[in-house]
């Protein structure tokens, strides 16, 4: 069996890639995809920990609460996509660009 720490390391790498992407990339959709990567790295960490807390052949409360959290994250991420893409489309209609550097009416 692959040790849990490998999964956690992978999830940490994904999280860092996601966070760097948000800070470095300028296209609103790519930034948004990087945020999704961060959320999914958390999902990976949750299921990996849940597997660790799962005794063989039995259902444990501890494992379930982690697995259920994953479903909540996926649902909320879907809701966020709905709102986020709508906002990006609205901006594209007025600006004809989704480059965040070109959205700078407000100083700061």
């Amino acid at each position, binding site marked *: 069996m692959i040790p849990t720490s490998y999964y*956690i390391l992978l999830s940490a790498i994904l999280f860092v890639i996601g*966070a760097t992407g*948000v800070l470095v990339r300028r296209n609103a959709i790519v930034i948004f995809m990087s945020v999704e990567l961060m959320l999914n790295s*958390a999902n990976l960490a949750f299921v990996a*920990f849940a597997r660790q807390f799962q005794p063989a052949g039995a259902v444990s409360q501890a494992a379930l609460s982690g697995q259920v959290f994953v479903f909540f*994250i996926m649902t909320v991420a879907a809701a*966020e996509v709905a709102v986020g893409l709508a906002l990006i489309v609205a901006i594209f209609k007025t600006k004809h660009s989704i480059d*965040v550097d070109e959205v700078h009416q407000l100083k700061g």
Partner: protein
Amino acid sequence: MTTSDFNAILPVLVLTSWACVLLLVDLWIPKDRKAITAWLAAAGLAATLAVVWLLSGFNLSGFGGMVALDGFSRFVSAVVLVAGIVVVVIAPGYLNQRQIERGEFYILLLFTISGAMLMASASDLVIVFLALELLSIPLYVLAGFARPRAESEESALKYFLLGAFASGFFVYGVALTYGATASTNFQQIAAAVAAGQANLLLLSGGAALILVGLGFKVAAVPFHMWTPDVYEGAPTVVTAFMSVGAKVGGFAALLRVFFTAFPALSANWAPTIALIAALTMTLGNVAAIAQSSIKRRLAYSSIAHAGYILMAVVAGGAAAFSQFAASSALFYLLAYGIMNLGAWAVVIALEKRDGTTNPIDDFAGLGAARPGLAIAMTLFMLSLTGLPPTVGFIGKFYVFRAAIDAGYMWLALIGVVTSLVSAFYYLRVVMVMWMKPGEGPVALPRSLGWVVGVMAVATLVLGVVPAPLMAAAGRALLSLFASA
């Protein structure tokens, strides 16, 4: 779902069902009479407030300890609900003037408020996460409500991207905490830490990431970058709610998570939050001086006030003082809500129809044109500075005392010095209002006049007799500490 589950979420349930029904009812309300939707939304908020009041004295826990309805959640719910009613009262006139009167405004507002209420009753990180998103997602839409105005859209995009970024941190922090303690429930996390079963490395990483996530929500330095732009670009009624509702919700979660789930780690998080509080107070107040737009100035002011409330959170790290610290935080949240909503209401009254920049010079001559409004604004500015006899003074007094009791003398000193700095930019507004000649009369809708009047009276009355409110805040916390 048992009866006690049902009762524990009853206020949130009432409000969300009302919002869902209103979403349908709104379809039959003609476009030019959306004020009806506003009245129905206000009725829903009032009904929820009544439910909160009827449940007072109960201490309920539901869904296997995931949700708790106690004094703390009732106090916070009441603050957010009242802020919601205030915004619903002033919104129809504002939205109508700008031709963005759509019924969805009120419904989104109701959903946001239910999110803030749920934040305060969460006792499991799953619920904190859901409530955080329920609070944030409608607010993203509300920030962009003045579409297709470019500022409003930009504000919404910035708020959305940075808010989602913050949720990413929060969720990863929860994942690490879960890995360390095998649970997401506050009590079980605290129990696992106390029993020494927790992996401290994972746990402190998790707590730090959760702090980052919530720090974004309450606009603490260095996670504050979005605040001035979002506050400036969003429609002013939305900004008024955002500055109170989102902050109160964020602090409610922060207090609950750090006081009930991580009390054993306080030796680690208290100094960290102390540093954040010091930075927040300093940067918020110093940066506010340079702003020429009143909306940006109040945005930095709201950052600075987050620092003062964080000071109370820091003080709560010392177990012996945590009860007084938490009640001073609750008192400050309410005081901040009152004076800030009042100030924003005055800003709304003065905003030009197409006004996008809101320069401070708009206030010139207000003292001559509208003495009542100018007196109220003077009161709010004095209160935000923290001068007696206003509620802002009492709030700061309690927070500083909590910090000094807990041994954070240096933090309280920074608080006093930054308050002096803040006098410079708050009182400048007062000076412009009374000393500079202005253009002429300002139209003041009656609903706005009422709101400003009530907030001004509350600022003054609670500043003179704060004891009953502080006692109420203390009572609200009894159950929180009994269970912890």
